[in-house]
C-alpha cells in the first residue's frame, strides 16, 4: 500500500509549480484570462513544449501514456495555479473521446495536433432541457449519403468558444431520454449549419451554446453505441475536476490562514480568535477529506480488483464530497477575508468561482449523491 505520488509524478508536478512561479503570477494569469480569447496561446504552447499536453494519451497515439493518477497529478497543480488555459475540455473531454473513436485515420491525424498544442477541440453534449442528464439528447443525426446531418441545440459547451473542431453527441435511435442510441460526430466549428454563440462563465472560461441546422458531420463511433465511451471519459473527467478542486482547496485554506495571521481587528490578529481557529480547523479537515477520497478513488480506479460498481461508488462519493467541502471551504475563505474577500483584486474570489463552476459541471453535489445512493442502496 502506498498513497503518495510516484517520483515521476512528483517531477511532473514540480515542473508545473516551477513554471507557475516564474510565469503565472496573478497578474500574468490575468492578462490571458481577460483577453478576448480568455487564455494565453503562448502559455498553452509552453504546456505543449513541456510535454504536459501528452500526458493523457496512449503511447501508441504519440502520448505519454499517463494513467488517471498522472492526470490527477497535473490537474491538482493546474488547480493550485488556477490555470485558465483549456486543458480540461481539450485534453480530457475532446481528446478522451477522440482516443476512444473507432476511426483510426482521424485519431492519427488529430491527436498529434492536440499534443503539439495546435488543435483546440470541444465536446458538445449537454442540452438546455437536460440539466445534468447526459442521456437526455434531442439533437439528432440522420444519414445523408456517406455522412450524417445534425440538427439540434447544445449548451454550455466547455471550450466551445475557441474550438476548431467539435465532437457532438447526437441521437441516432431511441427516445429522447434513452441511454442507448447515442453516437459521436466530428464537425468543424465553422462548418455550414453550425451557429455558435460564445459567452464567458464566472471562472473565466469561454464557452458556447451551439445550434446545428442540417450541418454535415462525420460519424466517429459505432452507430448508436457511444454511451460506454462517454461514461469512460466522464469518469476520468470527474476525477480530473476533483483533483483540480483539491488543489484549489489547498490554496484557499492556506491563503485564508495566512490572511488571518496578518489581519488585525480589535487590536489583535484575527487568527487569535478561537471561534475562527476552530472554523479553519474544520476547513482544513474538509480539504483532508477530499484529498483522502481523491487518493482512494485513484488507487481503486487503477486496481484490477475494482468492480465497475465500486468504481462508480468511489467517483460519485468523491464528487459529492468535493461539492460539499468545496462550497464549505470557498464560503469560509470569503467570509474570513471579510470585505477584502469580496474584491476582484484578491485571488480568493477567483478560486472560489472556479470551485463553484467545477461543482456545476456534469452534475452538482445532490446529483452525484443521488447517483451514489443508486449504486450503494438501489434495489
Amino acid at each position, binding site marked *: 500500500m502506498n498513497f503518495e505520488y510516484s517520483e515521476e509524478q512528483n517531477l511532473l508536478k514540480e515542473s508545473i509549480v516551477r513554471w507557475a512561479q516564474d510565469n503565472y503570477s496573478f497578474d500574468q494569469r490575468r492578462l490571458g484570462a481577460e483577453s478576448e480569447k480568455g487564455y494565453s496561446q503562448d502559455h498553452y504552447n509552453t504546456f505543449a513544449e513541456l510535454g504536459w499536453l501528452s500526458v493523457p494519451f496512449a503511447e501508441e497515439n504519440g502520448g505519454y501514456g499517463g494513467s488517471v493518477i498522472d492526470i490527477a497529478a497535473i490537474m491538482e497543480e493546474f488547480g493550485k495555479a488556477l490555470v485558465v488555459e483549456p486543458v480540461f475540455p481539450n485534453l480530457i473531454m475532446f481528446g478522451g473521446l477522440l482516443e476512444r473513436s473507432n476511426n483510426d485515420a482521424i485519431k492519427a491525424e488529430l491527436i498529434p495536433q492536440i499534443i503539439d498544442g495546435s488543435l483546440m477541440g470541444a465536446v458538445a453534449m449537454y442540452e*438546455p432541457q437536460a440539466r*445534468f*442528464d447526459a442521456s437526455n439528447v434531442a439533437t439528432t443525426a440522420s444519414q445523408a449519403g456517406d455522412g450524417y446531418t445534425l440538427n439540434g441545440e447544445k*449548451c454550455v459547451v466547455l471550450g466551445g468558444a475557441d474550438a476548431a473542431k467539435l465532437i457532438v453527441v447526437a441521437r441516432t435511435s431511441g427516445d429522447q431520454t434513452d441511454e442507448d442510441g447515442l453516437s459521436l460526430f466530428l464537425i468543424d466549428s465553422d462548418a455550414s449549419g453550425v451557429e455558435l454563440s460564445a*459567452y*464567458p462563465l*464566472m471562472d473565466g472560461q469561454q464557452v458556447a451554446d451551439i445550434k446545428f441546422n442540417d450541418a454535415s458531420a462525420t460519424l466517429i463511433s459505432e452507430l448508436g453505441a457511444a454511451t460506454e465511451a462517454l461514461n469512460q471519459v466522464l469518469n476520468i473527467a470527474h476525477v480530473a475536476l476533483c483533483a483540480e478542486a483539491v488543489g484549489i482547496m489547498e490554496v484557499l485554506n492556506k491563503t485564508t490562514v495566512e490572511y488571518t495571521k496578518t489581519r488585525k481587528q480589535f487590536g489583535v490578529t484575527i487568527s487569535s480568535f478561537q471561534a475562527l481557529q476552530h472554523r479553519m480547523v474544520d476547513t482544513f479537515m474538509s480539504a483532508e477529506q477530499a484529498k483522502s477520497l481523491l487518493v482512494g478513488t485513484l488507487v481503486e480506479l487503477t486496481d484490477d480488483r475494482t468492480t465497475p460498481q465500486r468504481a462508480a461508488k468511489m467517483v460519485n462519493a468523491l464528487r459529492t464530497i468535493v461539492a460539499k467541502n468545496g462550497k464549505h471551504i470557498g464560503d469560509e475563505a470569503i467570509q474570513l477575508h471579510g470585505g477584502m474577500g*469580496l474584491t476582484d483584486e484578491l485571488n480568493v*474570489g477567483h478560486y472560489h468561482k472556479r470551485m463553484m*463552476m467545477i461543482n456545476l459541471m456534469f452534475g452538482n453535489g445532490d446529483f452525484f449523491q443521488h447517483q451514489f445512493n443508486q449504486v450503494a442502496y438501489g434495489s
Partner: protein
Amino acid sequence: MDNSFSSADLEFQQEVRAFFKSAYTADLQAKVESGEDHKSVAIEWQNKLNAKGWLAPDWPVEVGGTAWTPVQKFIFETERCDAGAPDVVPFGVRMVAPVIFTFGNDEQKKRFLPRILTSEDWWCQGYSEPGAGSDLAALQTKATKDGDDYIVNGAKIWTTYAQSADWIFCLVRTGTFEKRQQGISFLLIDMKSEGIQVNPIHSIDNHHSLNEVVFENVRVPQENLIGVENQGWTYAKALLAHERTSIAGVADSRRWLRDIIALAEQQTNYKGRLIDDPQFQTRLSDIEIELMALEYMELRVLAKLSSGDTPGPESSLLKIKGTEIQQALQELRMQTIGAYSGSLHLSNFQNDLHRAGSNSRRAYMYGRAATIYGGSNEVQRNVIAKAVLGL
C-alpha cells in the same frame, strides 16, 4: 396570542396592493430586472413612492413620514415583495435621514430631508475604513477645526454607489479619548468638495458598486456637523440596531423561494420534474422551515416594538438568521439552474435559463457580503454572547 389584522389593517392591505399593481408597471419591472442604469431607474420608482407619500414611512409625520403601525409596515413590506417591487435605496431615506431628524438641527432638517424625498440628493455611507472592518471604532479619518470649517483627511471603504452620490455621511475622529468610541463625530460632506477622490472597487459579482473614498484636506463647513462634537458614535449606534432589524429580509426571501419553486417546476431531474425530487424538496424545506421560523421571530420583535420597546440585541439574531437564509436561497437557486448559473453577462442570452442563471450567479456573489457588512455575523454572535447570554 393572535395573528389577525384589524379591519383597518385589511383595508390598508387592499390599498397597498392596489398601489403596487398600478404603480409598478411592466415597463418599470423590465428596467429593474435588466440591472442596468441603476440610479435613474431607482429614482423613477422612488418618485412614484414619494408621490404617494410612502417613500419614508419611518420618518416623523411632520417631515414626510406615515405614522404607520408596525403591522402596517409589515403589510407594506409583504405586499411590496409579493409585487416583486424593489426596496428603497437605503442610504438617504433609511440611514442618514433618521440621524438628521433625530439629532440634527432645524436648519439641517429643512436643508436635507426634502431633497432626500425628491431624490435630488443621493447619499452614500462613510463608516468603514481600510483595515478597520467590523471594528468600526478603530476609524482613523480625522477632522480638524480650521476657522468655520473642518479639514478632513483619511479614507473610507466599501462605500456603495459613492460614484453616483451627491453627499456622504461620515464618522470622523475629532478628538482623542481613552475609550475609542468617544471622540467620533457625525459629519455630512458634499461629494463635490475639492480633495475627494472616489476609487472604484470591482467586486466578485463582476460589477462596480463598491468604492474607496479618499479625503485629502477636504474642507467641510462646521454647520454640517450633526449634533454635538465627539458624540457621533451614539448617533450611529442608534441607527445600526434599526438597520439590523430590517435586515432579516423575510419578504424578499419568500420571493426568492417562490422563484426557486417556479424554476424547479420547469427543470428536469432524473427524467421527472426537479420539484418532485424528494432530495430537492428536502433542500428546499430545510430553508423554507427556517424562513417560517424567521418570519415569526421578526413578527415577535415587531409586536414588541409596537408596544413601545426599542430593538435590543435580538436584532442581531434576525441579522444572522436572515442573512444565512438569504445565502442559502442564493446557493439553492444556482443549484436549481445548473451550469447556466455560471453565465457572466446579463445580455445576449440564448434562453430564459441563461438570464435566470446569470442573475442568480450575481445575486450569490454579491450576497456573500450580507454576512460581512453591517457588523459581520461573527461580531453579531459576540454581541449576543455578551448582551443576551452574559458570557
